[in-house]
């Protein structure tokens, strides 16, 4: 019988028993799924802070959780909490405040933000101030809570407290591939036999002025501010940059044996993970696509499958001219031009924008919903095909299709690439 719980390489099969999602489209997977398959956009004009002087004034912010401005780690933490609560409730595992496995949390880097720095500056008695004066302001002790809040491990630590995950949580960042890495770490830990269950999540609530400006300065963002819902245009000829966005997703990962033993409903299988990093440039992919190709090939190899076994690709598809072209180059090399033409590929980012640290987790969650519902969310805003990258992007309207196996791509600034292979039923 033990055979049934291991994959073809003799490793424990890792399944998903709980899924939670929050994006600008709403809270919970039901709402998100309904709106994603209706082709709705969550992108809108930013209301959180003044926009005067900004080149980009739109984003997929999550505005329904707090009334006023909160520091980014507060929002990231809240988003992750909601996603993890939904996932854990669905998995029906553990007890309140006691989750029986470790936490792998993809969280955005944090630092003191401008409102906090300004509050420090206000207690400096002389003007003009120099940076060192802020340290004297800190020494007043009036701002001591900010120390913990702006530590890099802060969000994951509080999540670990709230959910009672086991051991020290891991906070990680592989930029835009972070969510995929969090899942991969969970899969590996279960395969090593270190744990039966893991909570993997990605969260990002960091749309604040400086974050937006930093991406603007890298010329990475679209400036199509007039029609926010039409600004993210992955794979279209008129794509001109990504849209920053917020959200979170959480997966409860579990060994098949453990899930079966407790009679849990199995929502999907994490069949394989692949990664390969790029050493070409800090923001650009190697022109030959080798790391993107290698990353997908490694994932297929890890799952023990061939390109012909893939029914659908949940693309990284950021809507930048460079990413979408390189993703095409990579997919063409892996699948071959003819086969690729027959595989549906869509980008959730056309609707929810680029949720950065959370994207890999959100897109893995949506991939599982795609398998479960037999329906592929569209790539919206695809009105002008790019003849240089001919793809079936499931343009503008969702499509019913039998989907048993998905690969989900995530490629990060800094050259960190992750590809996940997800299926419905255990083989």
């Amino acid at each position, binding site marked *: 019988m033990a055979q049934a719980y*291991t994959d073809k*390489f003799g*490793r424990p099969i890792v399944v998903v028993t709980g899924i939670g999602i929050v994006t600008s489209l709403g809270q919970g997977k039901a709402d998100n799924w309904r709106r994603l398959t209706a082709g709705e956009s969550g992108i809108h004009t930013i209301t959180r*802070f003044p926009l*005067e*002087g900004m080149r980009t004034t739109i984003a997929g912010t999550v505005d329904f959780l707090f009334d006023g401005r909160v520091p980014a780690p507060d929002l990231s933490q809240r988003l992750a909490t909601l996603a993890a609560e939904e996932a854990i409730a669905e998995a029906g595992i553990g007890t309140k405040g006691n989750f029986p496995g470790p936490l792998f949390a993809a969280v955005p*880097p944090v*630092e*003191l933000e401008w409102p906090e*720095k*300004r509050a420090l*500056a206000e207690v400096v008695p002389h003007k*003009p*101030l*120099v*940076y060192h004066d*802020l*340290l004297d302001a*800190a020494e007043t002790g009036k701002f001591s809570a900010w*120390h*913990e809040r702006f*530590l*890099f*491990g802060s969000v994951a*630590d509080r999540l*670990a407290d709230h959910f009672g995950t086991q*051991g*020290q*949580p*891991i*906070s*990680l*960042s*592989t*930029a835009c591939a972070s969510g995929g890495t969090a899942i991969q770490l969970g899969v590996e830990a279960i*395969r*090593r*036999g*270190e744990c039966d269950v893991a909570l993997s999540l990605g969260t990002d609530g960091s749309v604040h*002025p*400086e974050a937006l*400006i*930093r*991406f*603007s*300065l*890298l010329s990475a963002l679209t400036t199509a501010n007039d029609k926010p819902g039409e600004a993210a245009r992955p794979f279209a000829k008129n794509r001109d940059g990504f849209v920053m966005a917020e959200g979170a997703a959480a997966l409860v990962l579990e060994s098949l044996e453990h899930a079966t033993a407790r009679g849990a409903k199995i929502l999907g299988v994490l069949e394989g993970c692949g*990664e*390969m*990093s*790029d*050493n070409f*440039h*800090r923001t650009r992919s190697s022109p030959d696509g080798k790391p993107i190709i290698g990353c997908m090939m490694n994932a297929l*190899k*890890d799952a023990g499958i061939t390109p012909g076994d893939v029914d659908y690709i949940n693309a990284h598809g950021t809507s930048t001219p460079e990413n979408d072209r390189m993703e095409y180059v990579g997919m063409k090399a892996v699948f071959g031009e003819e086969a690729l033409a027959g595989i549906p590929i869509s980008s959730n980012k056309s609707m929810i924008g680029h949720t950065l640290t959370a994207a890999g987790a959100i897109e893995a969650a949506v991939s599982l919903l795609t398998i479960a519902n037999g329906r592929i969310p569209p790539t919206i805003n695809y009105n002008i095909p790019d003849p240089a990258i001919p793809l079936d992007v499931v343009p503008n309207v969702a499509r019913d299709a039998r989907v048993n196996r998905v690969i989900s791509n995530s490629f990060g*600034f*800094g*050259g*960190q690439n992750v590809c996940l292979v997800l299926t419905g039923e255990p083989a």
Partner: protein
Amino acid sequence: MPEQSPSTKRDVWITGIGLVSSLGEGPQAHWQALAAGTAPVTDAERFAPYVVHPLVKVNYDSQIPKKGDQRQMEPWQRIGTYAAGLALDSAGIAKNADILGETDMIVAAGGGERDFQVDAAILNDMLVSNDTGRLLNERLLSDLRPTLSLAQLSNLLAGNISIVHGVTGSSRTFMGEESAGVDATRIAFSRIAARQSEIALVGGAYNAEREDMLLLYALNDFCMKNGFRPIFGTDGAPGIPSGSMGAFLVLESPEHATARGAKPLAKLSGVWSERAQRNVDGSVAEKVTALLAKAGTTPGTAVFSGATGGRGATEAEAEALRASALPVRSIANRIGHGFEAQFAAGLALAALAVSEGTLFPALPGDTLENGNGAVSRVIVTAVGHWRGEGAGLVERVD
């Protein structure tokens, strides 16, 4: 290759060490300074009243030949990329594209750093502006260097190591202060032991000579001020003497190392990561005691403590270490505290000590540092200044 069944664990060797700190550059320079009982190199003036251990002067060109690459990095990334290069050199795999293409990397990283002039200038203008929103947007757009965000991103230390040294097997970045260093090492170690990986580069870097990080820790009064004092002194915890450092290790399976003719510098025999409920009295000391027990305290064992000097955790760890009666040395008493980088630095010093087979002299004035003589096993502790308790065991290979 997909990994095999996890049932058969194997040894993990340390085959490369890259270390740069206030004490010097490279294992030999460090060992000479340690063995000579050199006083810690500190600077209490430059950022007065805060005490830092400044980085030794480094010729970055030797590991990061392109000036363009150096310009794309803030100092913490430059220190880390440099130390990573030293580790690859030490392991004999630098420029070996085949091996680097399969080398898994896990970096423990913080982030930043700020442009202090720009921040101060914007704050001064904000305080007298009646349209601070517009002011902030316009000033940031015009004053931030376009590449600044890349130099700040946590995962870009790993990105730079890939670009400069060609490490491309995989790339992961863990954040979260001291425990990021422990868990980065633990995951790299566990993957090799479980045959999920053959060779890994793991470590981190910290630049102590920056006011934004001093600010973060000063917010809750964690910094060492007004002159250096030993970590386990007579007046309770002295505060954190932050230290600039870069520390990387090459970890490798014996099969992989042997096949390429590499010898182990030492064996990494275990890495453990725990999380005490710090609001419960005695919980930290209890965790440290349990970690020591897990690592084993047979004769020839010493402890290299990663105690930060921060209040609370330092006294709690001291209690557990004193009770163990093991010979103890504090890492921060030598090179300061490097947060994410501290654990890898401690493991590097431990590997040196077991390969030399002897302890270096205790620091005068430290009440806990004691014991001398032969050592074949070193337990490196990493009790975070606010959270996370970890340890690693380094053993001599004969």
